[in-house]
Every structure is written in C-alpha cells, then in structure tokens.
C-alpha cells in the first residue's frame, strides 16, 4: 500500500514538474483565486464584527452592562450598586450613567439627542471616550455648566461628513442651549468635542453628575445603566455570574450578549452570504479541477493503458492524478494565503470606511484551516472521478485510443 502510494506520488510529481507549464500556472492561479474568495469575505465580516465588539466595549457599555429590571425605568440606589459591584472580583471599575432625551439648539439648528450624565473619574477607568477629544478637553468631576458633544451632534466642518442633523460645526468654547424634558433650559459652555468613530458615542452629549443634580435640583441616586470594565484576565460571563451572586437583581449582560442582541440578525445574514460564497467557490474549484484532470487523463488514455499493461495497478494510476490535484491545491492554497495576507496588509494601511468605524479584514486561522480542508476534499473528488473513469477502461481500448 505504502509502496503503491510512493509510486503514485513519484508519477504525480513528475507529471507536474515535467508536464505543461501553462495549464499548471493557470490551474494554480484559479485555485488561489477560489481560496482567496473563500477567505476574503469572511475576513471582512469578521473585521466588521471585531469593530463592533471593540466599539461596544471601548465606547459604549464596557465589558458588562447593568440596566434596570424589565419592569423599571431606573436603577434605584445607584451608589449602593456601584459600591457593591466595585468589590466584585474581576471588576476593575463600574461607572453609572443617567441618560435622558434633550433638545440642543444653536442659532437656527435644533437636534434631538440623548444626554448622558457621568462621573468623569469613574468613566475614564471604564471607557476610552476621554482619549478621543477632537477639540477641547474632557470633563472633570464636580464641573457644572460644561458639556461635551459628540462630533455627529456638533457637526463637521465639512457637512458631507455629517451622518444626520447637527448643530452646524460647533467648537470647544462655543455656547449651546440644552432643553430638558422637565422644562429646564440652560446654556452650556462646550468644553470639548469627541470623535471616537463609534456612532453611538459620537452622536451623544455628556455632562457631569453634579450638573445633572443641579438641573434636577436634587441628589440623584438613580441611573439608567451602569457600565463595568473588567480586569484584563477576567472572563465576562463569570463576572456576570458573580454580580448576580452578590444579590444584584437588575438585568446584567456581557458585551457578547449585547453584540448578539444588536447584531444577531446581521451576523446570521453575513453567515448565510458567506456560506453561499464558499459553496459557489467550491463548485468553481470542483469544475475547474475536474476539467483539468479530465483533459489530462483523456490525453493520457494510451499511456494509462500501457501502464496497466505493464502491471501498474489501477489504484496507483488513479492516486497519481489525485496526488497531482492535491499538489496543485497545496500550491494554490499557499499562493491564495499569500494573496489574502497581501490584501490584509494593504487594507490595514487603507481600511474600509464604515459608519461605525474603519474595518480591516481579520483572517481567522480556523477559516484558513476549514476552507483548506474543504478545498482539499473537493479537489480529491474532482481528481478521482475522471482518473477512475479512464483507469477503469479496458486495457486494449485505452491503448488503441
């Protein structure tokens, strides 16, 4: 058996290295393109999901989000909850948010937005919004009459970059009027403009907790949500379990839960699109390889007949062609990986621009392995069938062809 495979491999290597160069290069190129097609689409989808993950964690909810119980609008005793959560193993810091709808006005421009009250010192330990100041500075604890606007609310200098209604290119130092739902209307000094690339963060407005209390005229011990940054080595689902164990009755979700909730349908659609791409690619691969081996075997019918006459078994002849296909596929996959990695390198420097940020392809090793295996399986089938057909011919019929 091993000896037979050795002979098949010997014949296959000779067949490839001393056969037609043109068909060799063309076949390898087609396999490489098929492989690239199989890998590239999932890498973009993965890149898109990675951006969504990063943005959810970095600018939106942290690693874990606590929101009010389903029957309630607010988390009561927010301070008590923060104290409790900050003691839980695996939690780096928790930060309370109080979000409410407001109307912002600047000259003739009006924008309805969500304003979020934060404790800046806590927030800096949970999100990276403070690192993304396009203009001015971030808020500080205890400050009042100051506001930070997201770039999609303040507006770009070039209106074409705006994704919706804005206040018309406001800068740090400008005044902006904020009308609250409780009837309070107040003019704020814009302390800074934030631009994160996350639409959620960039379309918001931020004030301090002290400012919120001044607007409402009372101590605020309620929150609309609490966001949590976990320790780098902590596993979010374990932290979620710990939070429940500490007696928290509010709704607790990890970023994975939120991503599934927000993008579940989109991911499903992407997966379906990806599957279609892979199936079409595999069909192309199987047809091309089938034709290549069919032509090779048809052109070698007499030679196959002679080999059988000399006592070379059918299996050796078939495996010769299967090995040829496997070798071509190995070379094709190597060229394909080179192409994919080159494209990834280029797209890392010049990423795709999406509303939620810059997307660079992310090539998962599992995708490389799985798609290579699938390609090898179809290649073996595509090589085996035509080789089997010709090798099964009667010796004299083959020799007379």
């Amino acid at each position: 058996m091993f000896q037979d495979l050795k002979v098949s491999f010997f014949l296959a290597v000779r067949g490839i290295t001393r056969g037609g160069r043109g068909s060799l290069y063309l076949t390898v190129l087609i396999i490489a393109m098929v492989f690239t097609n199989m890998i590239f689409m999932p890498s973009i989808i993965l890149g898109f999901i990675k951006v969504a993950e990063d943005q959810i964690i970095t600018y939106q909810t942290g690693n874990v989000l606590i929101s009010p119980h389903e029957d309630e609008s607010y988390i009561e005793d927010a301070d008590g909850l923060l104290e409790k959560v900050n003691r839980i193993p695996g939690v780096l810091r928790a930060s309370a948010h109080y979000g409410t709808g407001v109307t912002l006005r600047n000259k003739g421009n009006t924008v309805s937005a969500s304003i979020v009250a934060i404790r800046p010192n806590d927030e800096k330990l949970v999100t990276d919004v403070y690192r993304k100041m396009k203009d001015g500075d971030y808020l500080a604890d205890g400050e009042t009459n100051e506001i930070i606007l997201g770039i999609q609310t303040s507006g770009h200098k070039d209106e074409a970059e705006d994704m919706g209604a804005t206040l018309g290119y406001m800068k740090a130092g400008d005044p902006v009027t904020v009308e609250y739902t409780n009837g309070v209307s107040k003019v704020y000094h814009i302390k800074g403009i934030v631009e994160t690339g996350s639409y959620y963060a960039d379309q918001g407005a931020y004030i301090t907790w002290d400012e919120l209390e001044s607007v409402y005229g009372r101590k605020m011990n309620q929150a609309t949500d609490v966001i949590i940054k976990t320790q780098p080595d902590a596993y979010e689902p374990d932290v979620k379990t710990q939070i429940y164990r500490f007696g928290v009755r509010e709704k607790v979700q990890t970023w994975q839960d939120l991503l599934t909730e927000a993008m579940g349908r989109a991911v499903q659609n992407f997966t379906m699109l990806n599957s279609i791409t892979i199936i079409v690619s595999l069909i192309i691969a199987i047809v091309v390889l089938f034709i290549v081996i069919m032509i090779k075997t048809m052109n070698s019918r007499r030679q196959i007949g002679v080999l059988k006459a000399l006592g070379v078994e059918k299996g050796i002849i078939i495996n010769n062609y299967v090995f040829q296909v496997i070798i071509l596929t190995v070379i094709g996959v190597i060229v394909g990986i080179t192409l994919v990695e080159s494209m990834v390198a280029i797209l890392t420097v010049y990423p795709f621009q999406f509303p939620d940020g810059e997307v660079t392809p992310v090539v998962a090793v599992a995708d490389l392995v799985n798609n290579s295996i699938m390609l090898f399986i179809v290649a073996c089938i595509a090589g085996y069938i035509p080789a089997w057909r010709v090798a099964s011919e009667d010796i004299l019929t083959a020799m007379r062809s």
Partner: protein
Amino acid sequence: MIVAENLTRVYDMGKVTVQALRGVSFTISRGEFVGIMGASGSGKSTLLHLLGLLDRPTAGKISLGGMDTGTLNDRQRTRFRLKRLGYVFQDYALVPELTVEENVFLTSMVRGTAKEQYMNETLEILKRIGLSDRMKHKHNELSGGQQQRVAIARAIVNKPEILFADEPCANLDSESSKNVLDLFKQINREMKQTIVMVSHEEWHQEYFDRIIILRDGEILSDGPPA
C-alpha cells in the same frame, strides 16, 4: 513455457461478429524466440494480446509457466503481468514525463524492489543496450531506435519469464530495426529469454527460432524458419 489450447476470440461489433482466432493451439518452450507472422488481419496481434494477458479468450485455455491464467481475476492478472511478463510495443510507449532511467526502473519501483537494487539493475541494463550515457534524457531527446531500446530495457529489467513484442520495428528504419532485432537475439541467447514477437516483415524470419504463421485466425504453419 506457454501452452495455448484451442484459443478462440470473437469480437462482438454490434450486429456483426468477427472471429479473430479460431481454435489456435501450440506450445512454446522456455528460451525459444518465436515469431508470429501473417498478413494484416490474420489474428497475430490478437493472439499476442491473449498470451500477454491483455485480453481474455472467448474460448480456450492459456497456461503460462504452469499457471492456468483463466483462473486469475483482474488484479491477479495485473500482478502476473508485472512480475512474470515483459512487453515491448510498436510505438515504444515510454512515459513522456519520465527520463530514460525512470522509465526503465518504473516497474521495479512498482514491484517494491529496493532503490539501490533497481538503480544498479537499471544502470546495468542501460549499459547492455548502449544507452547508459542517456540515462537522464527524456524520450523526445532520443531517436526512434533508441526509444525502442529503452522500451526493451524496461521490459527485461525485471527478468520476465516471457517477453512479448508487438511489431517493435514497425516505426523504425531498416538500420534501427536491425539493431533492435540484434538486441532481441542477444537477449534471447545470453539470458535464455523466451521471446514472442509479432512481425509482418519477411526479413525478420532469420532472427526467430520458430515461426507461427497465421491466416484468417488459424495456424497456417508452425516450425523453424525456411
């Protein structure tokens, strides 16, 4: 030793049947150089194919080296051809992607012979046929006569019990043909090699120990050359 008993081969060509051999019987002893001759369509190639286990008779029996070949299945026939028979074809039939030495040692490789052994045997046989300086050449770098000598080397490298040759000089000029036939004769004498060769050239008769002449699928004569 070859024993053919009442060999018949009928080809079914749809509505027509062609009887290529009609009850042919003979015995060939070890070491004989036998020529099968006859006009085109007389059945000589059909007979060679049956004796060489490339085809099965419609009726009759073939024994090679004491083995009743009718009892062998396809796989056993393939192993039998590999281990006990050698072939030389009209158009050389060398594997185009292989060099001279690779063509020669291919069947040894299939037989599972150790590399060192088959390389030595290949070198030895190529020296014997005068092509040891062309070992690394490909078939298209050789003349027709040289290619046929490589095919002969391939056929005899494993020291087969019987060597079959199907009009091996058909594509060669007379000088190359003479060289090839001299080589066959030399192999026959020096190695006591049994050779069964199909030919239609009258002048080849002088090389054979015995000639079986066929006509319309039957033996017209069987004996030493005139």
